[in-house]
C-alpha cells in the first residue's frame, strides 16, 4: 500500500522509512503480547497466528534494508541523515530478532499446555512480559518523539527486568523440585522467561541506536549507582489482591 507512494522529497523518503519501522514495531509488540497471552491462556490458535506473523517481520526487515541502500546510493546523505538511515537498518534488525523470540515462545505453547498447568506458574512470566513490553514501548515512543531525555531510564528498567528474571528462574526451580510433574512445563517456561529477558536486551539496543540518531553521540555506558534503595524489584504490591 505504502510502496505505491511516489517519492518526492528526501524528507518524505526518511518519513517512509520511519513509518516502516513503526509498522514493524507494532507487529513485534503485538507478537510478544500475543505469544505470552497464548501461553498463559493455552490458546494454540493464537500461538499459530504469532508464528505466521513472524514472516511479516522478516519481509519488512529485508524491505527496509533494500530501501535504505537505495536511498543512500541516490542521495549520498551526510551526518544526521546518514545516522537516521543506518539507525533504521539497525532498529529493524533488533525488531526482527524480537519477533523471532516471540515466535519461539509461541512454539512452546503446545508443549506447555498439553497438561493444564496451575496459574501460579504463569503469574511471574506475565509481569516480566509487562515490564519488557513497557520498555519496548517507551523506546519506540522515544524514537517517534525524538526525545533523548527519556532514554536514560531504559538502563534502569533493564536492570529491573534482569532482577525479575532471576527471581522468576528461582521460583520455577522450586516448582520443579516440589513436584516432578512440573518439570517439563517449567523448563519451557524458563526458556520463555529467558526469551523475554532477551527482548529487554534488544529494546536496550534500540535505545542506544535511537540515542545515537538523535544526539550523534553514544549513550554513556553505565551510570554510577548512587542510591539502590529506591529500586522496586518485585512489582505487584500485596494490596493488589483486593481488587
Amino acid at each position, binding site marked *: 500500500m505504502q510502496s505505491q507512494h511516489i517519492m518526492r522529497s528526501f524528507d518524505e523518503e526518511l518519513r517512509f522509512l*520511519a513509518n516502516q519501522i*513503526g509498522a514493524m514495531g*507494532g507487529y513485534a509488540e503485538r507478537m510478544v503480547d500475543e505469544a505470552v497471552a497464548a501461553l498463559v491462556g493455552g490458546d494454540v490458535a493464537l500461538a499459530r497466528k504469532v508464528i505466521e506473523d513472524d514472516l511479516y517481520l522478516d519481509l519488512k526487515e529485508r524491505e527496509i534494508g533494500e530501501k535504505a541502500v537505495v536511498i543512500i546510493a541516490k542521495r549520498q546523505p551526510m551526518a544526521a541523515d546518514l545516522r537516521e538511515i543506518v539507525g533504521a537498518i539497525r532498529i529493524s534488525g533488533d525488531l526482527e530478532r524480537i519477533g523471532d523470540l516471540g515466535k519461539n515462545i509461541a512454539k512452546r505453547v503446545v508443549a506447555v499446555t498439553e497438561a493444564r498447568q496451575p496459574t501460579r506458574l504463569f503469574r511471574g512470566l506475565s509481569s516480566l512480559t*509487562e515490564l519488557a513490553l513497557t520498555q519496548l514501548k517507551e523506546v*519506540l515512543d522515544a524514537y*517517534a*518523539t525524538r526525545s533523548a531525555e527519556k532514554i536514560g531510564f531504559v538502563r534502569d528498567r533493564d536492570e529491573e527486568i534482569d532482577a525479575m528474571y532471576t527471581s522468576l528462574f528461582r521460583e520455577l526451580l522450586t516448582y520443579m523440585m516440589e513436584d516432578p510433574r512440573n518439570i517439563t512445563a517449567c523448563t519451557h517456561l524458563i526458556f520463555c522467561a529467558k526469551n523475554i529477558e532477551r527482548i529487554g536486551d534488544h529494546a536496550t539496543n534500540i535505545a542506544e541506536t535511537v540515542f545515537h540518531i538523535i544526539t550523534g553521540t553514544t549513550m554513556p555506558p553505565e551510570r554510577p549507582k548512587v542510591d539502590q534503595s529506591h529500586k522496586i524489584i518485585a512489582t505487584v504490591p500485596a494490596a493488589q*489482591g483486593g481488587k
Partner: protein
Amino acid sequence: MQEEQGAARRLLKAAGERVARFGPVLVAAAAALLLLDLYLGGTGLGAALAVLVLIVVAMLFPERQEKRGAEERIDGGARLIETLPATDLAAAVQDPLYIFDEAGGVVYANRAASAAFGPAVPGLSLQLKFRAPEMHDFIARAIEGVNGDLAIDYVERVPFERAYRVSATPIGEGTRLFVLLFKDQSEARRIDRMRADFIANASHELRTPLASIAGFIETLRGPARDDAKAREAFLQIMHDQTGRMARLIDDLLSLSRLEAKPYGRPGEKVDLRLLIGGVRDALAHLAKESGVTIELDIPDTPLEVAGHRDELVQVFENLLENACKYGSSGGRVVVSAGGGGPGEERTVTVTDFGPGIAEEHLPRITERFYRVDVETSRAQKGTGLGLAIVKHILTRHGARLSIRSKLGEGSSFTVHFPPP
C-alpha cells in the same frame, strides 16, 4: 420510499398551512376574480386559472420569506465561526485529537492528546507513534481516502490498559489535512473485563451444592442403601440442591449487572427461621467435614422479612460456609436471631470461635476477590467472592452487614434487615 412519501407529505402540509393562513385574503381575491370574469362575460375558466396562480404564489412567497429569516438568524454566529482559528476549536475538544497531513505527520495535537500520549514534536509520524497493526493500516487508509471503517478500537496494554474508539476524517475539501479523534472507552472495557472475571471465578459457587449432592449420592450407595426413610429425605435435599444450582447460574449472570443497577426492593415474604434451618441442613456435610457443630439460637416465633428466598439462602450459606471453613478451629458455630417486634429491625448473627480477622482487613473483606490469606482461601476452594455476593444481595434488600472480630477469639457477621 417511505421517507420520500413522508417528505412529500410534510411539504404539502406546510403549503396547506400557508394557504390556510392567507385563507380570507385568498377567498376574497378568488371571489373578486370570479365576479369580474363573469361580469366581463367569461366562463369562469380565466378566473379559475388566475386563482390557481394566486394560490401557488401564496404557497411559495412566504417560504422565501421564512428562509431569509433563518439565514439572518444564523448569520451572526457564522461570521464568528468563519474567522475562528481551527486550533481554538481543536483545543476546546476534551478528547485527544490530532490534525495530520497526508504524509501522516502531526500538524497539531490538542492538550488532551499530549496528556494522554505524551508531547507531540513537530512532524511526529503518527504511524510510528501509533504502531499497532490495525491503527497503522487505519491511518494509511484514511490518508489514501479508501473507504474502510469509519472508526476502530485501539487498545494500549502497557504501562496500564487504556482503550479508545478512534476515528479519522478528512478536514474540509482539498486541505489534505485530517483529524484523528480518540474517544476513551477504558471505563466500559474495565466493566466488561470485571464481569467476565466475575462470572468465570464465581462459577465456583456451583461446586458447593455439587459437592453436597455428590456426598449424598455416596451415602445413598453406601451406608444408607437400604434405609428407605433416609433415601427419601436425601433425595428431597438433592432435588432442592439441583434446583438451586440452576437458579444460582441465573443469579450469577444477573449479579454481574447488579453493581451498576440497584434493584427495587423485593416483595416476597420470607420466614428466616425456616430458611436458616434449610441452610444448616444443606451445609451439614461441610460442617461435619470441618469438625464443626452448628447451633441455632432462634426464637420460636416467625421471623419474616421481604426478600428473594434464593438470594437470602445464598447470603446465609456464604456466611455459614465461611464460619465453618475459616472458624473451624473453634469447633462450633452459632446462628442467632433477634428483633422481630413491630417496627424493629430483624437481625441474624453468625458467630464462630476461630482465629478471627485482623482489624485492617475488616473494611475490605467484602470487596471482590479480597482474601485475608490467599493460601488458606485457596485451600478452602474460596475465590474471594462469597462476601461480595453477600453484600450485593443485602444491598438489594435494603439490608446491611456488620462484622465484629477479635484476633484469637472469633468473628461474628450480623445481617440487619429493615423493619417490614
